[in-house]
């Protein structure tokens, strides 16, 4: 064997063996062999962080809840290095000179009574209110938890989360990042932006009962409806499921019993009642005054007209527009509204959870923010 062949064989052997060396090393001396981590206690609760913070408060300030209120506010540092201030009697935040000049505070603020925060300030640590808290205008708040109410004055931004034990109210031009929740209801003023919110009732702007009156009210009902016995371009029908090929339009004032699935776009005509769920594999347009007793799902964009009532959940893989005075869910049947982008018109209300993965906007009646 000549030297050229020998070199060739050695190089070939090296090329074959070299990739195995790290493999054999990892096999014999494992450095990464733990199972992929699964979050076993994941519970999809919007108020998860708020609850965690409440536990933190009780753990670090448990003495506060058991002792009588003191005369003077208290300042200190927790074991984890968190600088805090307890406001026993003050009802208004007084910033230090340095905080005022820098327009920010890094103290954890703890308020015994109703409390007002300073405006034009960034709050880099959490805020806890044993009763209610009002934010100052033009504030940035990392996170806030109260046992009663939260009132976010105009141009306030929540960075991570906010939870009110009763009512959370956001004035105009508030930006609600992260998780927003309340024990009773959330009220947003036009215009606002949001991401993920949860409460027994989420009210966008002002709800008008008059506009939401349904054309199908029980007194009128049966004479005005056209019961649909079948659907065009039907591919499959078994039990409650009606599978339709292509685009589908349900005429106005129709009454249909069953679940409808369209392979492409779907339009539900004004005033119709669907006693079931609907799914569009394209765009879904629900005209004004429609009632859907089940869920509404679209693979594309979804438009829900004015005065609609949908029991939910509502799931759109495209953009979702919630019409004026439309209602999702009910007092005794909370549900979810999920889409990457959600635009709500004045008067829309959701009972339960609304989650805009990318962005959520509350629009004025003109549809333009601001």
């Amino acid at each position, binding site marked *: 064997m000549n030297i050229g062949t020998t070199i060739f064989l050695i190089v070939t052997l090296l090329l074959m063996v070299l990739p195995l060396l790290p493999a054999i090393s990892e096999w014999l001396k494992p450095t*990464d062999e733990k199972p992929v981590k699964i*979050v076993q206690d994941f519970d999809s*609760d919007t108020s998860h962080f708020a609850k965690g913070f409440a536990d933190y408060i009780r753990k670090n300030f448990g003495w506060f809840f058991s002792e009588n209120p003191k005369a003077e506010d208290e300042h200190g540092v927790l074991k984890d290095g968190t600088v805090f201030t307890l406001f026993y009697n003050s009802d208004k935040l007084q910033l230090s000179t340095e905080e005022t000049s820098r327009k920010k505070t890094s103290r954890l603020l703890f308020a015994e009574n109703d409390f007002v925060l300073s405006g034009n300030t960034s709050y880099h640590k959490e805020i806890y209110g044993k009763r209610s808290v009002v934010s100052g205008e033009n504030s940035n708040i990392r996170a806030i938890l109260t046992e009663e109410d939260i009132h976010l004055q105009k141009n306030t931004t929540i960075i991570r989360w906010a939870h009110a034990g009763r009512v959370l109210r956001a004035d105009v031009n508030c930006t609600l990042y992260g998780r927003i929740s309340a024990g009773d209801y959330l009220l947003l003023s036009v215009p606002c932006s949001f991401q993920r919110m949860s409460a027994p009732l989420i009210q966008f702007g002002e709800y008008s009962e008059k506009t939401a009156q349904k054309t199908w009210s029980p007194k009128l009902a049966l004479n005005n409806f056209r019961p649909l016995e079948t659907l065009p371009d039907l591919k499959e029908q078994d039990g409650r499921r009606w599978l339709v090929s292509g685009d589908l339009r349900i005429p106005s004032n129709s009454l249909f019993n069953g679940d409808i699935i369209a392979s492409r776009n779907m339009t539900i005509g004004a005033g119709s009642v669907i006693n079931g*769920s609907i799914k569009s594999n394209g765009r879904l347009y629900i005209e004004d005054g429609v009632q859907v007793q089940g869920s509404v799902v679209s693979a594309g964009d979804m438009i829900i007209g004015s005065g609609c009532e949908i029991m939910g959940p509502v*799931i759109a893989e495209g953009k979702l527009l919630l019409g004026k005075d439309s209602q999702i869910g009910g007092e005794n049947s909370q549900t979810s509204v999920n889409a990457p982008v959600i635009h709500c018109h004045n008067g829309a209300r959701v009972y*339960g959870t609304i989650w805009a993965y990318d962005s959520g906007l509350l629009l004025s009646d003109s549809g333009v923010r601001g």
Partner: protein
Amino acid sequence: MFIIILKILLLIIILCILAYTIRHYIFTLNRLFGHQRHPYVDVETAQWPKIAVLVPAHNEEAVISNSLEALLSANYPHDKLIIHVINDRSTDRTREIIDGFAARFPDTIKPLHRTTGVAGKAAALKEVMLYVESDIIIVFDADYIPGKGLLKQLASPFFDPEVGVVMGRVVPVNTKTNLLTRLLDLERSAGYQVDQQARMNMGLVPQYGGTVGGVRVAALESVGGWLDHTLAEDTDLTYRLMLKGWKSIYQNRSECYEEVPENWNVRIRQVKRWASGHNQALARYLTKWIFNNNISFRERIDGLMLLGIYAMSPIVILGWIIAVTLFYLGEQTIANAAIALIAVASYSSIGNFAVFFEISTAVYLDRSGNRIRLLPLNFFNFVISILTVTNSSVKQIINSRDGSTKWDKTPRYRVSNFILS
């Protein structure tokens, strides 16, 4: 003439291999750069439907307690939850343990003790359906430990009236045991994190895997219920449902730990079972799938390729044989090219999603670190798989039997009261 025939066959085989290779490249690129679809997993609040969790059990004394405890700790409304535990002729303490839980939680846990009838998981599921009154069933193997929110996550896709079946992700928990479990961990990661999720993203055919998954009862009934003489009831059900216009959904974030085989004998038996079951489904549904009107064009293509995935092993080996034969018959140009191509591409196309670049991508997406170094050793796993599948496929053709009707389950390695660290 003989050489021409061999060349044509070889060309067809190469095209098939290339098709699968391209398929898996597309999946990988989609997973890395495409739009990721998780439309249902974040349904937080709802009027949750009644669900029945089915837990088939055969000699599961080591693990059944942990599984039932975990299910009872789920945050699913307990007035909407029934857990049917099906004890199928266990000879250990499984029955006693199940009855103990049923006594403690009579409203939630309903035991079914089978002593007669066809053996096997599919038959057990079929029999328990007589007692199910829920709209949705969710199946867990007896050694699985679901997290608190998993039942809600698996139930939420069924708010979409088109969904017939849902599959979550299984994650090996016994990765530290030996090299085999680490290699299988890589394989599973690729299969779920990349392959299944890419198929979900692209509206293709995510496959129901028989556990950590749910089925709509109305959908199941519309396709004739569970078939007790199938080797792979999961694959079979996926195709039957899609032929009827139902959709199959995969949820990558709906995760649950499982145990993978810890020795090669068990692993080989597992692969044989999967291969036989899959080939059985291929024989049953190939023609129907080609001509059905309820599936889209892309579903049709992907479904065909999925059906044929285990059949590719003997085809690849045939390709090797033909290429080498042509080489020795003097057709060295085409043979050399074919050998090289098959060598490079075949490992990308074979077996239970064990595709090398999918593994790399899965490890990256899982934010795992050095375990990727084991990737070259997966070549041996691949060789064993291809031989096992080929052996199983050939025997299946020769015997032309409809699968076994006995429990051929993966042994359990955990002891009781296993605590996840």
